[in-house]
């Protein structure tokens, strides 16, 4: 059987976090009553003239520099002409042949292997309105209702090179890109709300082939999971076609998340004759070195640098540091907790373990996590100081999830202090030795495991409060 190589390029649309639209002063607030953030400009009324929001250029420039792109100092806008009800003007204002930047890259890491994914270009454009269909899907709808609140919201489109070779690489690229857009604070990156969207160009070619295969463009990828599943599905679909002696058709397909399939959108060829021409209503933008360097100097610490810092300053394993910095909110939480924690690695373990498990089960992000970073730090310190065993710490954590409070106060309130008093523990140890002669004999006969049973008995008796290290030490001393 022929072996194939998968080739993936991503086109990512990120809505910029401006307060107003790209070319008019309407609000960009999400989730408002339909058609309440519109004006003559964004609804394309005759005679209305666009004026560019300066913040759009600032944000686009910030993203461009964070993504290692070469900035084009001369910028203009172009009209992309097409008819669709979500576009009141009959054209979208975009950048065609002179985008704000080109030739960038993101370094990703998949299973320990570093790889550089090229960014072809980033351009500025405006979003379209939203169609709400009367039925479940467009094909089962009799009509649609158009809301122009999103029409004119500024976007950047980030086009990658076809450098990715697997769904995992595509996911890693998308995660890194999202992290960088979050760190630079240019996009709120809510895939569910559509402020970060992804289309994937996918093709396959036999191993050794010199030319890429025919690609399909997959739209409607609203989550990392959808991206991975759509790529896996599409690769299999294309393989089957080639194995059957057919050829892949270049087309746009949509991802159906419910049924886990991609479906052809059957667009007419001429629908994509956009007849771009320079937007006559907007003057060009001339960027100069002073502007570019000012934005560069204001760039925050980016995920890569932050990861390196966590490894260097706190001794975190590279992988753990990578997991923490993949979300800015998580990294901020870590830094806040680590500031007062005696054990930064302990903080990292809690964040990646119990805290992440809780966030996943509640389907919330760390920004909605109710436990204050200082309290998590306090919990970690109580373990470090030997006040709490890790088992009791989990119990305290469970209480914190119910109501955020000082773990110290909780420990006192619930009487959960670990017992580290030698006299008290020694009594428990002697009791256990007397009650379990068989285990004692086994241990003395060389069965090291027997000691585990004895420790378990003592911990049980102390209701988990005995300091396990001390229990072990005293037991061994007595059994020598």
């Amino acid at each position: 059987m022929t072996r194939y190589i998968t080739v993936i390029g991503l086109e990512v649309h990120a809505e910029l976090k401006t307060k107003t639209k790209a070319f008019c002063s309407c609000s960009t607030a999400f989730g408002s009553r339909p058609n309440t953030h519109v004006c003559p400009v964004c609804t394309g009324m005759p005679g209305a003239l666009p004026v560019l929001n300066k913040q759009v250029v600032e944000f686009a420039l910030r993203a461009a520099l964070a993504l290692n792109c070469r900035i084009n100092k001369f910028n203009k806008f172009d009209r992309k002409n097409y008819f669709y009800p979500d576009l009141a003007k009959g054209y979208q204002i975009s950048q065609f042949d002179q985008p704000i930047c080109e030739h960038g890259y993101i370094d990703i890491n998949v299973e320990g292997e570093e790889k550089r994914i090229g960014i072809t270009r980033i351009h500025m454009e405006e979003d379209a309105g939203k169609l709400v269909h009367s039925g479940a899907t467009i094909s089962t709808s009799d009509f649609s209702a158009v809301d122009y609140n999103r029409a004119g919201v500024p976007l950047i489109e980030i086009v990658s090179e076809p450098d990715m070779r697997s769904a995992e690489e595509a996911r890693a690229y998308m995660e890194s890109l999202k992290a960088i857009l979050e760190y630079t604070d240019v996009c709120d990156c809510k895939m569910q709300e559509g402020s970060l969207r992804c289309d994937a160009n996918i093709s396959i070619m036999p191993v050794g082939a010199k030319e890429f295969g025919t690609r399909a463009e997959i739209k409607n990828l609203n989550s990392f999971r959808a991206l991975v599943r759509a790529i896996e599905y599409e690769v299999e679909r294309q393989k089957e076609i080639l194995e059957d002696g057919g050829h892949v058709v270049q087309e746009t397909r949509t991802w159906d998340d419910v049924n886990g399939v991609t479906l052809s959108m059957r667009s007419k060829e001429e629908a994509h004759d956009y007849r771009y021409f320079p937007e006559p209503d907007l003057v060009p933008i001339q960027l100069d070195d002073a502007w570019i360097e000012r934005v560069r100097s204001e760039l925050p610490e980016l995920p890569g640098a932050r990861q390196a810092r966590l490894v260097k300053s706190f001794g975190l394993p590279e992988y753990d540091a990578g997991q923490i910095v993949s979300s800015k909110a998580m990294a901020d939480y870590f830094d806040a907790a680590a500031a007062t924690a005696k054990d930064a690695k302990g903080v990292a373990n809690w964040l990646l373990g119990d805290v992440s498990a809780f966030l996943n089960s509640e389907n919330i992000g760390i920004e909605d996590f109710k436990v204050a970073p200082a309290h998590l730090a306090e919990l970690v310190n109580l373990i470090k100081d030997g006040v709490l065993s890790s088992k009791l710490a989990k119990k305290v954590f469970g209480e914190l999830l119910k109501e955020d409070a000082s773990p110290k106060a909780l420990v006192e309130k619930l009487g959960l202090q670990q017992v580290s008093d030698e006299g008290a523990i020694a009594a428990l140890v002697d009791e256990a030795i007397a009650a379990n002669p068989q285990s004692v004999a086994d241990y003395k006969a060389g069965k090291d495991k027997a000691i585990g049973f004895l420790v378990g008995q003592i911990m049980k008796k102390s209701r988990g409060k005995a300091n396990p290290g001390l229990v072990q030490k005293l037991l061994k001393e007595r059994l020598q």
Partner: protein
Amino acid sequence: MTATAANNLKVSQDDVEHIAQLSRLTVPASEREKFTEQFNQILNYADILEHIDTAGIQPTAHVLPVSNVFREDIVKPGSALEEVLANAPAVHNDGFKVPRVIE
């Protein structure tokens, strides 16, 4: 039609029909020939410009020698909903009701 134009057909009747379709315009068959002639005349006239030496001249993106006209990112109220929807052929849930469109 001039002789030059007749010899230099850049646009066919099919092209005219295609452009009309892209622009959502209905061009009656009776007028197609006339439009084809006129399109070609315009394009042939533009040919004159091809003979001008433009080496070393920047392409013109905008006719005015102006750049960097910006607006501050400050919200201003838009139009009233009733005013906006007054332009809708039909309204459904505060939206412009349109027939089902499949691209």
